[in-house]
């Protein structure tokens, strides 16, 4: 069980409606790394991420080809349960992730599928809710929570499975500044490999030392987040823009800590 946390090779994929999203993707993420996945809308970021635990792609019966390894385990049909336990996916819209009647039911869904029952299951649920600071809201229905709270519960639903790799799709979108900061505190406190899709470039710089830049269904750049964000030509070519007045060279990043 050795090897990089994520290894992707020559990945190609088209949706059933004929739209091709991935045109050959290659990259590797080592264990314990925090990597941001940047790119304009429609670059194929979400599609790529959905491949990492075998939800899309040839392993799920879709139209595509290529090779994926998670922690040294090849992504094949017979390994799907193992892979899905190792890779925790937090979806962009927390309403997609929270589908059970209450917060408690929802966080328990994953570990219950792993076979946990009774007190062990309850402990696991409580632990995950404490990690995101939502232990007092366990009996509420998702639609009674604020957006920021739902996002945190969505993270908890995945943490309850104790994943090795945490993959987040635009975790800071639609959050107010305080919720955004609370989430970054939660994420920096976790001891997992992190892959994070984001349009929030300061967030990428704050949390991730390394970034992948994706456009047109391919990885077009791979390097230190600070270097990528500082490369004006590269940024312009792929429709990425820094917030007004933000200078990536003058703010502290994760490498400084």
């Amino acid at each position, binding site marked *: 069980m050795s090897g990089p946390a994520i290894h992707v090779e020559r990945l190609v994929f088209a949706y059933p409606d004929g739209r091709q999203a991935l045109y050959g993707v290659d990259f590797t993420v080592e264990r314990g790394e925090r990597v941001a996945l940047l790119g304009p809308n429609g670059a194929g970021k979400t599609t790529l991420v*959905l491949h990492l*635990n075998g*939800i*899309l792609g040839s392993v799920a019966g879709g139209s595509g080809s290529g090779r994926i390894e998670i922690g040294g385990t090849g992504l094949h049909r017979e390994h799907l*349960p193992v892979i*899905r*336990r190792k*890779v*925790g*996916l937090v*979806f962009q*819209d927390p*309403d*997609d*992730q929270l*589908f*059970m*009647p*209450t917060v408690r*039911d929802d966080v*328990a*869904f*994953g570990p*219950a*599928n*792993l076979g946990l029952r009774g007190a062990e299951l309850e402990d696991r649920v409580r632990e995950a809710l404490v990690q995101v600071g939502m232990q007092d809201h366990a009996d509420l*229905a*998702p*639609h009674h929570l604020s957006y920021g709270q739902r996002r945190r519960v969505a993270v908890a*639903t*995945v943490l309850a*499975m104790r994943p090795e790799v945490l993959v987040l799709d635009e975790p800071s979108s639609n959050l107010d500044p305080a919720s955004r900061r609370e989430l970054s505190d939660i994420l920096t406190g976790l001891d997992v490999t992190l892959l994070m899709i984001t349009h929030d470039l300061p967030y990428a710089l704050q949390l991730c030392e390394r970034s992948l830049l994706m456009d047109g269904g391919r990885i077009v750049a791979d390097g230190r987040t600070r270097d990528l964000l500082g490369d004006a030509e590269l940024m312009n070519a792929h429709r990425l823009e820094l917030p007004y007045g933000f200078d990536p060279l003058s703010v502290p990043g994760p490498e400084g800590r």
Partner: protein
Amino acid sequence: MSGDGLLVPVDSKVHRIPAQVKIVALFVFVLAVVSTPAAHFWAFALYAVLLAAAIVVAKLPLPVVSRRLAVETPFIVFALLLPFVATGPTFDVLGVQLSQSGVLGAWNVLAKGTLGVIAAILLSATTGPRELLAGLERLRLPSTLVAILSFMVRYLNVVSDDLHRMRIARESRGYVGGRAGHLKAVAGGVGALFVRSFERGERVHLAMQSRGYNGRMPLLGEVGATRAQWIEGLTISLVAVTVAVAARVVGL
């Protein structure tokens, strides 16, 4: 429409009865009402008293109950037409010929329909959606159906909100064209709503799969109802059944 249904969130004896008991009780009660011959007016008065008592015990505000009665409207219209269209002997009221069986039939539909709706309001106002689902699960409803029900209840709000937002967006831009344009705009919105709902359904399934979903949903209701709870919950229904049987016997 809220995903909470008609729930009135107060704490009462009725609220605390397990949902499966309430569902069975409601069903038995309504069945007793429905099988009571229409001409036994006293029996219906007793049913009404029983329901009123239950509403008081459940601490339900009257406006909540009366507002929901509006769902009956189309059938009230139908019932009021019955005296004019039914066959059989007639009698004269202010020069209008009314059918005897029609008048009785109108009463029959109105009385039973109203009692049925009030009984259903009693269930939905004292039972949260999650408890209701757990109750249905305890009553051995197929698990796939419970799962579909549970997703529907969960996403009622989300889909309704989508619909609401789309309507606001449409109305804030103003309608274009005449009636056909209006229809096209509304229907286009609804078409888009289906695509959104469907795609969300796909994403939810992906989210479930990525957390190890293997075709079986975890159980919602772990504990069953005790014998005492069954007896307590079924009291009113058993009284109603007694009334119905008595009505039959007296009717003979």
